């Protein structure tokens, strides 16, 4: 199951050239870019692990691309996303976030139905991979 999250989730995976173009866009706006990774694909998993520090004061996308490729080499089988943080007053929040790497095989989610009083049902979504401990999931 192809998991989608953040920007461009409706598009096929971005090529490096396209990622670079997005990074240039972010840098032109003065946003700080960071690279993050995780192996918990749950949609409510907001806080991913940081790969290195956020990159401030960059002028050129080469540094970011280098960081992305290093992260891919270290964690080829994890989800990796690129975020652009806008520190200007009133925003102070990530302005961009998109996935740049995903595990080769994505097993998807288990849908659990919990039966309640009457005929009510509560739904829970649980990724199959989280049955295994962190770091051994993909």
């Amino acid at each position, binding site marked *: 199951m192809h998991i989608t999250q953040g920007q461009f989730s409706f598009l096929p995976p971005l090529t490096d050239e396209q990622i670079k173009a997005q990074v240039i866009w972010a840098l032109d706006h003065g946003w700080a870019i960071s690279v993050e990774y995780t192996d918990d694909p749950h949609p409510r998993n907001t806080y991913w692990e940081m790969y290195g520090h956020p990159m401030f004061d960059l002028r*050129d996308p080469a540094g970011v691309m*280098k960081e992305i490729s290093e992260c891919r080499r270290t964690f080829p089988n994890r989800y990796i996303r690129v975020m652009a943080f806008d520190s200007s007053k009133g925003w102070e929040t990530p302005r961009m976030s998109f996935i740049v790497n995903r595990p080769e095989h994505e097993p998807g989610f288990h849908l659990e139905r919990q039966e309640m009083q009457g005929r009510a049902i509560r739904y829970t979504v649980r990724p199959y991979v989280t049955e295994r401990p962190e770091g051994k999931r993909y």
Partner: protein
Amino acid sequence: MSTAQSHADQERTDARDERRITLENDGVRQILEKVNRELVGLAPVKARIGQIAALLMVERARHELGLTTEPPTLHMCFTGNPGTGKTTMALRMAEILHEVGYVRSGHVISVTRDDLVGQYIGHTAPKTKEVIKRAMGGVLFIDEAYYLYRPENERDYGQEAIEILLQAMENDRDDLVVILAGYKDRMDRFFQSNPGLHSRIAHHIAFPDYSADELRTVADLLLEEQGYHFTDDARKAFADYLQRRMQQPHFSNARSVRNALDRFRLRQALRLTQQGGSLGVEDLTSIDAQEVLASSVFGENTDSGTGPSGQPSPQGSTTDPAS
């Protein structure tokens, strides 16, 4: 671009190569002219920069005509005494590299040891890498690079910074140009202990000291920039001042001249305020001989006390030794 392509498709003659090169020359020539105007003297340096610029233009022309090109290594080392224009030249170099399309953004990140070397174990690598990432697409200018290596302390983290730098200079050649700068003798010693660094730098450029004549031209240029000029007497006095100042310790070429000019302006301002009355443009823009002669380098034969304002000279001489 497209015309170059079509030329290339039609035939690859030397004449067409040549025409491309002269066509694309303009931006670079403007910068080289700017260098010539802004930086007095430094003939060997300018010659070398001109060569590098020419090589880059030829490389680009070759690239456009589809010939094989090996991206040149452009890491440089500027050695020379203080105030000989190393930093200014690094800025211009970045502009040239940007103009010929060798670096993408043409910005200069100027750093010293503090920005690269960390304070505890594990601090150096991220710090150096961050600086390298910031400099990518532009020029990384490391001033007084020899401070990176401290032979007296074998646990110094500087060595680690050098290693990461070496790696980046080798692997990210397309994205990064590193320029090291420092005094000649210390840089030589630095390279002796880091031979790998020496061999990875293609261009070792020595900045010669300025002659007295060149320094006078520098002074005139600087004054002109600030909207001042010397009176004839002051120019003579300044020549004398330079002779004396150059003999003194801590003389740092153009920088000393600039500092001297700043002090002249201070004294001029004080003279004008004390003099009072109405002032014309000439009064406001001219540096008089007494401002120059009030300097402490003239020692015993200071004669500015004879001027209408007795005050400036003692004050002038007290500010002098501090600089």
